[in-house]
């Protein structure tokens, strides 16, 4: 736990707003403790252990604050931490709030909803530039810094997207009664487990805790597997992804390209780059998890080799898709099915898939392009769903014709890969007009 706390302060990038690189991880810790209080059972008896954990967290934060006095920028935070009295005051305020919440909130549904709205609100504010700028202006004013220089880049809260997913997961599972009893220590480790802090995967707390409590001794096999995954991840991220990034499609270069062929190369490069980047991070996280005795879930399983879009989404950022399936798609479709309006099934599937994927798109950032990217996939999945249903009854069984089956499989893989790759045009560029022009260029129409 201490390593994870230190890591979240260490990983947090610097921001132009004074001391924000210290306060953001601190708020992250406060939110974690608050969520634990709201989700813990009322009769939690392990008071002593939880108090000790709280004390350790407070002490670590204060010790990190003390590095201020070791030099201009010592060793952990990207900029000098705030004055110790400010940190102590913040710790006291958080403690008072925690005591208060602990008295009145545990088990209260209203508080759980309130906390969920707070997390989603924070999330939206961080992902929607006009709101982020407003936040930046407020923080700048608070710090007596130039308000007119406020920008969306001022507030870069590393790992919050994933922390938010984990916190909402625990809050929802608390409501549905599926959340196990957790000590503050276990809960904190789950939420800020440093290998998964910045880029996932999004593990389920029920599974994570089992690994955490399992006695663990590092064996040669585990160490080698872990090391191999870390090496593979570093190679994927820092050699392949970063190399491809030099010529992958982006907002700057999309309008500079003078040939259709090279534009396709750049679009393919983006598709591969985002895969190696993300899967590289996941490999590093899984490898580190191995070394620490935690078997983190896989996030990618050869997604670009899948024969249809449904299989693609079962193998691309799997834990994110599972999260949305569990906490949005399933409840939504269940609600629509049980509705008295008697909505036809295809429409329910359409509404469920479209809204789920638009939300997944917006999770990356609240912009038209991310929403369209989500809709592109939602629509693709719906079409595939309908197509599969149509074919199931009409196409003869391919099992007896292996050659044809192979050919159909290859065609499916190519089609899926290109559908996904073209979808990245929405994702990689910043405005719908820019993406549309790129589409026209890709097909020789501009």
């Amino acid at each position, binding site marked *: 736990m201490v390593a994870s706390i230190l890591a979240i302060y260490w990983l947090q990038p610097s921001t132009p707003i004074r001391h924000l690189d210290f306060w953001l991880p601190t708020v992250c810790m406060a939110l974690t403790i608050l969520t634990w209080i709201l989700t813990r059972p009322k009769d939690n008896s392990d008071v002593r252990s939880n108090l000790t954990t709280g004390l350790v967290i407070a002490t670590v934060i204060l010790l990190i604050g003390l590095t201020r006095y070791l030099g201009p920028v010592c060793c952990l935070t990207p900029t000098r931490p705030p004055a110790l009295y400010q940190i102590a005051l913040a710790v006291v305020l958080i403690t008072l709030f925690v005591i208060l919440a602990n008295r009145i909130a545990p088990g209260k549904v209203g508080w759980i909803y309130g906390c969920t709205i707070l997390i989603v609100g924070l999330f939206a504010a961080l992902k929607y530039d006009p709101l982020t700028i407003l936040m930046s202006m407020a923080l700048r004013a608070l710090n007596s810094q130039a308000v007119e220089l406020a920008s969306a880049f001022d507030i870069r809260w590393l790992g919050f997207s994933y922390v938010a997913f984990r916190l909402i997961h625990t809050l929802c599972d608390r409501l549905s009664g599926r959340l196990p009893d957790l000590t503050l220590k276990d809960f904190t480790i789950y939420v800020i487990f440093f290998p998964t802090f910045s880029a996932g995967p999004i593990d389920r707390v029920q599974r994570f805790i089992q690994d955490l409590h399992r006695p663990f001794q590092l*064996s*040669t*096999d585990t*160490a*080698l597997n872990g090391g191999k995954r870390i090496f593979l991840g570093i190679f994927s991220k820092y050699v392949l992804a970063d*190399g*491809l990034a*030099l*010529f992958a499609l982006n907002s*700057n*270069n999309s309008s*500079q*390209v*003078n*040939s259709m062929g*090279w*534009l396709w*190369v*750049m679009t393919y*490069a983006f598709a591969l780059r985002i895969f190696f980047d993300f899967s590289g991070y996941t490999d590093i996280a899984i490898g580190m998890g191995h070394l620490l005795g935690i078997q983190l879930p896989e996030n990618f399983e050869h997604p670009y080799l899948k024969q249809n879009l449904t299989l693609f989404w079962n193998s691309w950022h799997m834990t994110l898709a599972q999260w949305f399936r569990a906490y949005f798609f399933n409840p939504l479709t269940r609600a629509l099915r049980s509705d008295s309006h008697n909505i036809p099934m295809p429409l329910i599937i359409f509404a469920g898939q479209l809204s789920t994927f638009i939300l997944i798109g917006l999770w990356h950032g609240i912009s038209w392009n991310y929403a369209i990217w989500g809709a592109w996939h939602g629509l693709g999945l719906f079409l595939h769903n309908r197509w599969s249903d149509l074919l199931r009854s009409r196409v003869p069984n391919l099992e007896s014709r292996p050659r044809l089956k192979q050919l159909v499989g290859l065609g499916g893989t190519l089609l899926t890969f290109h559908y996904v790759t073209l979808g990245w045009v929405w994702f990689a560029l910043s405005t719908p007009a820019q993406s549309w022009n790129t589409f026209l260029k890709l097909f020789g129409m501009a």
Partner: protein
Amino acid sequence: MTEDKTTNKISMKRVIIKGVLLFLLIDLLFAPLSPLPFLGRISAYNIIYAGRMRLPYGENPDQAYNLSLFNLEAMFASHVLAATKKPLDEYRILIIGDSSVWGYLLKPENTLSGYINSANLNVSDGRSVRAYNLGYPTLSLIKDLLILNYAIRYQPDLIIWMVTLESFPVANQLESPIVQNNPFTVQDLITSYSLNLDLHDPRFVTLNLWDSTLVGKRRALADILRLQLYGVMWSATGIDQYYPESYEPPQENLTLDEYFQGLQPPYLNPADLSLDIISAGINITGNIPILYVNEPIYISHGENSDIRYNFFYPRWAYDQYRQLFAETCSIGRWHCLDEWDLVPPDEFTNSAIHMSPLGTQTLASELEHEILSLTNP
């Protein structure tokens, strides 16, 4: 169970030891093998993507799709000059010089070589003139000599060496990073042509064993790889430098300062200028003619312009340099052109030597006449 654990522990230890030893071996072997020149010659340019029209140089790689590196092999392998064996019907001209030749703020087709090529000249024996841009953006004659020394293998028929006074001071010769990072070749040039430069100048980058290992050379290796990858963007966009939306024009009002590079008026001592490097060029090229051109400069008409021509040059130093240049050319019977005032002030961009497309075209026209007169006696 205990046996298994022991076996595991032993094998893990062995794996780590073997891994570390193997890494150290490869890392250390890198130093004596010194494979960077060989690796530099392996290039996707001119095979997968078009060769570059000018040598790699770039301060904003993300926007320029270009970068500065010091591996001459990799630099030349990426250049269009290395594309094919010289065609029989080609009259090959290599243009060397500073950033004005390289074409700062100019598109490749708007550089000197671009304009000369677009003129579709033919020499008297029917061969078509093809000019190659081998300019490199630093002001140093030894840097030009380094490039000429490498480029001579590409069988030029004529060298055009663009010079300006700022490239001449002896004290500045080793300031160029490409010179500092190619110490052995430069030291070899100094020795071979008895140049007035210190072989042991501390500005030469000297590498210890660690710097020469794989780990020590990781940046140079990454640069070679990045140069190859940026080839895609070069081919896709034709962009090889960052073009800012606006820039500061050359200084019109000048300071009341008569010093030039620490040299005091009224006399410019020839010993302070690297005229010997210019002569060394003749020795390197042998029978291949060199056309030396004193390149155009911005001539200010603002405050203190009676003292200075521009930010770079006080009048006394520049006038004496021109005189010295003419005398040296005359004594050596070299082909020389002095085009110092050819281009009007409006046709300079962001410095006293960087010209606009029109300014460059004006100079190119002069050079075209000279090329034809040199080749059609």
